């Protein structure tokens, strides 16, 4: 019966190494490729993330139905929605401004990027600031808007897991169709050559600037 609940060194090293390997293969060590998602020129982040989520979610669901994975044995984050919303905003801004999220900054650093090391220093500083401010006020915000009924859509609102998966699969197709269209209408995804050469004016151009075409070229 799964999960094995292994908390040892080897499962950490092996799962982590596979994670880092795949992220680098996807191009997620490159800050101009990663932030291309927010400029709408490179949809790799959403394509890869959504595909991975659907594959893992469908796998967990099927294995649970088959009795291979025990019911309720896999960790599900608690539905503190205020914390999730505020944290999402801050990590989103940090990603757009800094060029990485916490995990991809490790990939960036170990593909030779020194700006990723600076991002990691910022990550530690942000943790220090949080710890310094931590107290009843932050705890109240972090505990707000909890969905008392449960942590998943089926527990909380009775939406079946199969339906949630079907909606996610449809959204995945939407991401590939819409993303592909916007990629073709703009400069398109950052290639490996461009990523290794480093961000420049061309690779960091926004897909649909507010101004006339070429207005942001200088």
């Amino acid at each position, binding site marked *: 019966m*799964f999960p094995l*609940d292994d*908390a040892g060194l080897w*499962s*950490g*090293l*092996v799962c982590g*190494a596979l*994670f*880092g*390997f*795949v992220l680098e*293969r*996807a191009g997620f*060590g*490159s800050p101009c490729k990663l*932030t291309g998602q927010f400029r709408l020129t490179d949809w790799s982040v959403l*394509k890869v993330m959504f*595909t*991975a989520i659907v*594959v*893992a*979610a469908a*796998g*967990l669901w099927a*294995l649970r139905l088959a009795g291979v994975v025990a019911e309720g*044995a896999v*960790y599900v*984050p608690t539905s503190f929605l205020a914390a*999730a919303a*505020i944290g*999402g905003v*801050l990590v*989103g*801004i940090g*990603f*757009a*401004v*800094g*060029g990485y999220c*916490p*995990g991809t900054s490790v990939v960036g650093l170990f593909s030779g990027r020194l*700006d*990723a090391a600076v991002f990691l220093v*910022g990550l530690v500083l*942000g*943790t220090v*600031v*949080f*710890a310094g401010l*931590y107290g009843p006020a932050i705890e109240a915000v*972090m505990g707000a808007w909890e969905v008392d009924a449960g*942590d*998943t*859509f089926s527990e909380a609102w009775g939406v079946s897991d199969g339906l*949630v998966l079907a909606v996610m699969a449809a959204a995945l197709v939407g991401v590939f169709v819409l993303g592909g269209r916007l990629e073709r209408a703009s400069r398109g995804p950052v290639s*490996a050559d461009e990523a290794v050469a*480093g961000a420049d004016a061309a*690779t*960091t151009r926004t897909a649909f600037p507010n101004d006339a075409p070429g207005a942001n070229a200088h």
Partner: protein
Amino acid sequence: MNTQSSPARSPRPQPFWPPLAAGVALGLVLLLTFLWTGHGLGATGASTRFTAWLGEAIAPAATSANAYLGPMVDGGNPLKSWISWQVVGVAIGALVSAFLAGRFRVQLDGARSVGTPRRLVAALAGGLLAGFGARVAAGCTSGLGLSGAATLAIAAFVFLGTFFVAGLVASRLFRGI
């Protein structure tokens, strides 16, 4: 060895995996992690423990007295945790992949697009915001967004939604790369 071809000596970087292939691979790695450990992949669990470890080394009294970091150093070395090994693994995996694909290059990425000073400030500020935000949410893009969504957690989809909208807006207002 051939001095005449030295300008083009470094191998050309291999292309990235197509997003669909990379996504399926990432999904299988995530599924393996769930089956093996009972939870998903993460990142900031390790940077938080590293911060506690650093605090213990620099200012032990203040760190143990801190309401957030204190409990982490009470039980011995805060780095002794699965997530620390997982992040060491991420570093190894990324390094191996980048080397094998001819994509390892030491650089300050973004120096050419926005200039070195701006890039340094943006990377530091971005890391700070992400570090603070990940502590509020008790997870980051990997731990809460990716791994949480695979368990169909409501909090994960709220996180991913605000993450994406905020990133879209912020990238229009400020150029950090």
